[in-house]
């Protein structure tokens, strides 16, 4: 097993750990807002580590960049969706100002 493989193994393990943490949060946290928090924060980080882990094995810069692009887009989408879900779940009153 080369050093690169060891690095991948470590990164994937850390990534999987974050996903597990996020999932535990989703299942165990008491309300929607804390659950969202667990999901978006932990899973985005987990995905980042998974991307980091697979990058050396894709055989080129372009595929590696594509995977990074996937990560960035996934974070954007998750962030936006989390905002929308959080706001929809607020009690019916004027939404607080946001930047």
């Amino acid at each position, binding site marked *: 097993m080369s050093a690169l493989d060891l690095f991948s193994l470590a990164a994937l393990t850390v990534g999987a750990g974050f996903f597990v943490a996020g999932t535990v949060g989703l299942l165990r946290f008491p309300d929607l807002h804390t659950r969202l928090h667990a999901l978006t924060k932990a899973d985005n980080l987990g995905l980042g580590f998974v991307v980091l882990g697979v990058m050396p094995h894709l055989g080129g810069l372009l595929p590696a960049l594509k995977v990074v692009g996937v990560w960035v*887009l996934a974070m*954007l*989408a998750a*962030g*936006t969706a989390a*905002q*929308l879900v959080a706001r929809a779940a607020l009690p019916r009153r004027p939404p607080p100002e*946001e*930047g």
Partner: protein
Amino acid sequence: MTSGVGSVAGLAFDLALGGLLLATALAAVAGRNLFGGVVAFVVYGLLASLAWVRLGAIDVALAEAAIGAGLTGVLLVGAVARLARIGAVEPAPTAPVGKALAALGAVGVAGAIALAVLALPEGRPGLGPEVARNLEASGVENPVTAVLIVFRGYDTLIESIVLLAALVGVWAASLERDWGGLPGLRQHARPGGVMATFARLVPSIGIVVGIYVVHAGAYAPGGAFQGGTILAAVYLLAAMAGLVEPPAVSRLPVRLALALGPAVFLGLGVVGALGGTFLAFPEAVAGTLVLVVETALTVSIAATLALLVLGPPARPSPGGAP
């Protein structure tokens, strides 16, 4: 990794994925809450596209994720919200006897299919070799695209018209007074809000990816249906963020865009028929013709899918019906 470890890991993965597929499908079908069921269905669709990757069918994985999970999910979530807004009364649950009978029938059909699959003979003849032998004549390198557009292009031609038949039916579900008007509800999003920002950011990437997926269909997984879906999704995102106003369904450019793909496909087919063979692509120009058909189909598929999700005309056109 040795082959043994890999196949054990693979087996574990397949078993886990199969279990998750069944669990999400069960939640989608039998769960108590309708919205939860629809969400479970979307998760199911994404897992199913993973299963397609495992089955070596990347083209299908793309289509399942984009259409099966994505667009169908948007459609159903929108419909749940609409029914909730109306306050529509839910149907009474089926009587236990009916449920038992349905379960019996469902188990029977599933069992029969499982038995039939297990009874399949070994070393079955697929059409893979046949496709490979004729791939040269199709003008494309991706065998799935070759089957879709060339070998069984007739299916695909009718299928592209199936989408239009559904759209006519959807439009006809409008009120008389809204006929020819704008589809869907008015969408509000604050110009500075996250939704609007996201919707401004994504289209530039989405359009590039969509066109790339169509173009890649000639030699790699992708094609008109997958790419067209991505383009439709980008448009829907912009429409939901209130960045673009959907056009009135009576507008000529809209209707021309809808008919373009099937019309080009059908026209080429009839030209072929006059030359002796319906839907024939002469080998010398097959690659070019496939590209023309795929491009035209992409325009129509993207327009049709987006309008199918937006729904029947529900507001009068601001300029009045022509």
